[in-house]
């Protein structure tokens, strides 16, 4: 059984006003096949947590650890973490001019697996994932995320999730900006990955609606850089109805 373990994670960023502490001791354990939803107000540090796990250079780890099956990830480079089995579906995927989706995916797959995928099987996998995500074949020849709509970018993230088959994925607001149909399509993609590979998921969201399709085992409330409360799926419903006021009063943000 694979396990992703986040312990007492403390992270800061450099700002013009000096170093700013954002994560203040995050503890979270995600087991294989589990889905953990993270909900919390704007600016509470959810994306920071996602980026810190992936190893974005802007975020400085001040303390704590992130281990995948006992192996420390924080010592590793961004690409090493990905090859170890971590994946981040980004809130705002970047455009890569001049690099086609198919070239990018093949390069990434080769890097993750340590060898180039067999052509036949690869094309077949690519085709069926794209069809399932309702992505037209023409996307293969387009430059990565260039001119993609918000929803298309999110599908492209899930396409990568399906093809690269990580052990754990952080989905940072993958549901935002999606219409109802796209939300279903993307959710199905996430569920397929879960079913096929035993993917463990950290799902960052503001809304309960995606949780109707991607069922969480646990819900964590994230406030002021740490987990303020945890519970089951019912907590998400309550948060959507009541908001975060209850937590904000006791935790003095900003």
């Amino acid at each position, binding site marked *: 059984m694979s396990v992703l373990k986040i312990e007492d994670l403390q992270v800061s960023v450099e700002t013009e006003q000096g170093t700013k502490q954002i994560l203040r001791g995050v503890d979270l354990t995600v087991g294989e096949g589990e889905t953990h939803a993270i909900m919390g107000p704007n600016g509470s540090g959810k994306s920071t947590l996602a980026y810190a796990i992936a190893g974005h250079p802007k975020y400085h780890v001040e303390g704590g650890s992130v281990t995948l099956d006992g192996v420390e990830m924080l010592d590793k480079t961004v*690409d090493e973490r990905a090859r170890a089995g971590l994946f981040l579906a980004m809130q705002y995927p*970047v455009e890569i001019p001049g690099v086609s989706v198919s070239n990018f995916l093949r390069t990434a797959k080769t890097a993750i697996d340590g060898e180039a995928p067999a052509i036949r099987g690869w094309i077949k996998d690519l085709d069926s994932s794209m069809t399932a995500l309702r992505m037209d074949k023409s996307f293969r020849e387009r430059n990565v995320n260039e001119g993609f709509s918000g929803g298309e970018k999110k599908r492209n993230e899930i396409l990568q999730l399906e093809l690269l088959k990580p052990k754990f994925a952080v989905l940072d607001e993958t549901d935002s900006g999606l219409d109802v149909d796209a939300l279903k399509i993307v959710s199905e993609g996430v569920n397929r990955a879960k079913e096929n590979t035993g993917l463990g998921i950290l799902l960052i969201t503001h809304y309960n609606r995606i949780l109707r399709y991607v069922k969480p085992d646990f819900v964590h409330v994230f406030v002021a850089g740490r987990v303020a409360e945890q519970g089951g799926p019912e907590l998400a419903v309550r948060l959507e109805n009541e908001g975060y006021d209850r937590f904000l009063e006791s935790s003095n943000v900003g």
Partner: protein
Amino acid sequence: MAADTTATAPAPAPGITEVADRQTAFVPVQTRSGRFTSTSVDDFEAVTGLEFEWKFAPLARVKHLTEAALDGSPVEVHSAEVEGATVGWIDRADARIGSAGTPEERASANAWSSFEKALHIRVTGEEASEVVVRRDSFGEAARSAHVVIEAAPNSRGTVILEQTGEANLSENVEIVVGEGAQLTVVTVQEWDDSARHLSSHFATIGRDANLRHVIVSLGGEVVRVNPAFHLVEQGASVDSFGLYFADAGQYFEQRPYIDHVAANTRSRVNYKGALQGKGAHTVWVGDVLIGPHADGTDSYEQNRNLVLSEGTRADSIPNLEIETGNIVGAGHASSTGRFDDEQLFYLQSRGISEEEARRLVVRGFLAEIISQIGSASLETRLGEAIEAELLRAQAGE
């Protein structure tokens, strides 16, 4: 890209632009069409390095090409026969010489004064043909050369000039695009490391004709290719592209000059460069002149540079002169930036190593120009050549 300095018409302060080292460069305000021209070297003053034309170039390494006696005898070229095009030599007294332009500086005039025969490439076919002319035998002696490329009215074709080996060369290339013709001219500089090459291209583009012109400079010590495009008849258009990759110690310069003479003419200029290694220096000066009769002109020029390491310098100077009020558009953009960290992070977060991510980003950046060439085999080969450059540059880091 970081530090993107993009501007569109109306230009900010005329003739002022930011360069990579964050100094401000002044372009002397001058009317390009009023510049002195002559085919005779003696009509030009000795070059001092203060002239705007010579301001950036490492003059010590090329000065001899402006004043020494040059060997103007023809040097063997290689080309396979193709239908719809011919390759041969014409005499310097031939009437076709001088039909596309006249030298504006001394190295160009020195070459013009001394060449014996001109290489003559003529495209006549109405079915698109592709002529590849390989030039690899110039050697180390100071030489001059002259090339005339002609596209017959309504013809279609691609002419690729491929330069390799040693060179110590000043040359002029004339391009005459006949009415309704569609011509692509690609010049690829993959010279040896010590080569010096100063080249002036002069093109006249006729009624409803299009010239697609691509300069690719990857190898050589000092390589300057300055094309001038004269849109002399209604409906003429030019697409001027450039791609350069300067390594440590290399100097690449290109100064596309678009001369909108006739009404309803169109130009697009897009040059992209990458610089890596100490002393890599590139210069782009884009002159666009919209003349008094060029009503309905539609013009846009841009230059983008990607700086891959410390110790490089990219000068990028757009320069626009408008002599008629009645135009469709005239814009320019110029930027010099470093790697976008977010792009690298995105690629690395998919398991791609930092080195490979950098190569992907640079190839992607330059791919926009490569894909304009229109010759599949050359596009593939250049993609590989750039990959090799990157691998070499990374190994030397």
